[in-house]
């Protein structure tokens, strides 16, 4: 700005319509007026239409009884509960499928990336086929393939496939024997939680001391030992039976008990995470390949074992490149979970659509859906960006 000073010193000679500052202000005012004008126009239209067509804009209907069922609600729900509760059920389903999807997609994507980089030609080609298959078909088609084609091949209830565990697989889903807390189980859980907390604190303190003093503090054995002691103690206090295996059993029509994954959930979860895993695999591969070959060679030259080469040299450097695109993959996965309605998994969008249909309040419900996804996205990217900053900071 300072070197421009002499040029514009003679202000009087510049007509206002060529004065950059005035043009800028004018442009802003104009665009603001246009945008706000369009919004106001739209809202006036809406109120006219709303009045004429008996549409109400309130959220009071949320308290009314919903009246429609939801398949396998993860939290307590029945049709006599309110619309708001139905909405919560959808939200929990969305969070469940995207949370688990993110974890699984990350693990599986990394494995695929490693397979892709493997020196074994067949393994590498299989990974390539997996990646190219998933990256080039629409997720919606993949959902149909999993739900209608793959789950279509699973046997009927009476001919269930039995795997050791026991795990049962049939049209109604996957039933897994699952430990459930007994009456005294609470004591065990409390003790275990305290144990985990204490051992983490010990771990951090001892490791810090080691870093400062350079002396061996045996932080790993010490914290693990503590953990085991707490677990044992909790187990004894609860009378030796903190858990009981809940084994699924056949009761005439269906299997009961155990942990059950419905085909809708499984289909949604699998296709969502496999689809995203293919993209994550490419991100991870790119990150690993971007690490300077010299670094790896140097690490090997000083005699680091392969695992340490990976964990101490490659990964810390690759992560910096991997994390930002990974964040957008996580966000994509969360947003893509809205396709659930196509295969009957009732996430927040599917429930919202039913509410619109039953309660007839399109606009408020729609606003609620948008706000839900917006806050989910903002929250995810906010948290992950903090992590990203930490990772990037380490590089110095």
């Amino acid at each position, binding site marked *: 700005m300072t070197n421009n000073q002499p040029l514009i010193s003679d202000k009087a000679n510049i007509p206002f319509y060529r004065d950059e500052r005035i043009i800028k202000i004018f442009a802003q005012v104009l665009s603001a007026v246009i945008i706000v004008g369009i919004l106001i126009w739209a809202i006036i239209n809406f109120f006219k239409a709303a009045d004429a067509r008996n549409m109400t804009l309130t959220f009071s209907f949320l308290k009314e009884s919903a009246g429609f*069922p939801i*398949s396998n609600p993860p939290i307590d729900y029945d049709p006599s509960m309110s619309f708001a509760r139905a909405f919560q059920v959808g939200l929990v389903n969305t969070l469940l499928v995207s949370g688990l999807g993110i974890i699984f997609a990350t693990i599986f994507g990394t494995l695929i990336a490693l397979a892709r980089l493997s020196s074994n030609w067949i393994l590498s080609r299989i990974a390539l086929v997996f990646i190219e298959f998933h990256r080039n078909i629409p997720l919606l088609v993949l959902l149909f393939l999993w739900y209608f084609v793959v789950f279509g091949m699973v046997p009927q209830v009476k001919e269930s496939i039995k795997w050791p565990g026991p795990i049962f697989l049939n*049209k109604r889903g996957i039933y897994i024997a699952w430990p459930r807390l007994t009456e005294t189980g609470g004591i065990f859980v409390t003790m275990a939680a305290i144990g985990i907390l204490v051992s983490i604190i010990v771990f951090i303190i001892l490791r810090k001391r080691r870093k400062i003093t350079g002396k061996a503090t045996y932080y790993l054995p010490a914290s693990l030992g503590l953990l085991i002691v707490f677990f044992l103690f909790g187990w004894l206090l609860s009378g030796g039976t903190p858990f009981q295996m809940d084994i699924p059993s056949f*009761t005439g*029509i269906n299997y009961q008990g155990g942990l059950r994954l419905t*085909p809708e959930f499984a289909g949604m979860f699998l296709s969502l995470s496999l689809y995203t895993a293919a993209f994550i695999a490419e991100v991870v591969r790119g990150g690993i390949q971007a690490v300077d070959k010299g670094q790896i060679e140097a690490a090997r030259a000083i005699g680091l074992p392969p695992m340490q080469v990976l964990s101490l040299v490659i990964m810390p450097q690759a992560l910096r490149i991997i994390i930002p695109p990974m964040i957008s993959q996580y966000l994509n996965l969360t947003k893509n979970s809205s396709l659930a309605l196509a295969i*009957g998994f009732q996430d927040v969008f599917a429930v919202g659509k039913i509410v619109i249909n039953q309660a007839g309040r399109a606009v*408020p419900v729609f606003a609620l859906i948008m706000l839900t996804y*917006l806050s989910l996205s903002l929250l995810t990217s906010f948290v992950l960006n903090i992590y990203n900053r930490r990772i990037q900071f380490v590089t110095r």
Partner: protein
Amino acid sequence: MYRKYFPVLAIFIVLALVLTACGSTAADEPAEVVAVEEDILNRVLDRGKVVCGGRTDLAGFGMLDADGRNEGFDIDFCRAVAAAVLGDPEAVEVVPLTASDRGPVLQTAEVDILSRNVTWTSSRDAQWGNFTNVMFYDGQGFMIRKDSGIGSTDEFDGATVCVTSGTTTEQNLSDFFRQNGMEYEAVIFEETAAVYSAYEEGRCDITTSDKSQLASVRSGFANPDDHIILDITISKEPLTPAVPHGDDTWFDIVKIVSFALINAEELGVTQANVEEMKSSDNINVLRLLGEEGDWGYTDLGLAPDALAKAISAVGNYGEIYDRYMGPNGISFTLPRGPNLNWYDGGLIYAPPIK
């Protein structure tokens, strides 16, 4: 880094505030009712086309043939209206709608007729539009797999049921189980076909829907005998074409077309014999075909032979029914049952055309 989120957060907070404000202040005040004025008839005449909210994915009622032509029981009704108003049964534009689109689309008068097997209920009548005349009496029933070990509704407790979302079916189902104090697991899809695919695969023990649909679906199964449609009917489902609120003339026209199709069957007027019936000696036939008297066409602004054109376009009620669901129907065979004419013991009855 975080700067970019500030504007978003700002609008987010404002939106949230506005929404809560709406929720708390304006609660439950009935909106001032202003009558909507629509001029659908003139719009149809200007456009030269009837926009018909239908579907392309339900055998018998709304589907596509190999040449991409829309056909089905619901679609033929739209064609009849187009023939009556515009003289051309092909002057129909079918807009495929999903179950959840139906209400809003009718409310905003985006379609001239909604003929997409919609159940007429009081709340829909109040919210969506005007319902004309019941074209198909249906009722919700249950179809069960023979091998499921369920024999009757008493044994439904703990069963898995496949059902469509966004319809009256879903509510009826939940009411039924609640009243009988039984538990069930619902598997809910947006799309009708998905429901039956899932049921056929064995995802559910039971599927529930309008009985006509169940019959159609059952006929397509590889082994129809493995499935039973129970005799019980748990709800009334009068499937009725609807028109948007606000144009009484249009409402009347659509109603009268449906009356005409029903009366034609009663009077023995068919697609084939419309022309010769014009010289019939039955006075009621002559009135229907516009040869004698005024059935209301002057007031509605239609041609005297409008109803005759509708009949020659798609045939009478019975012919439409048989075309898709009769003994040699395109889609499947379903006995007429409640959809027989009143003099045969059914419910199909229309005011006279005179």
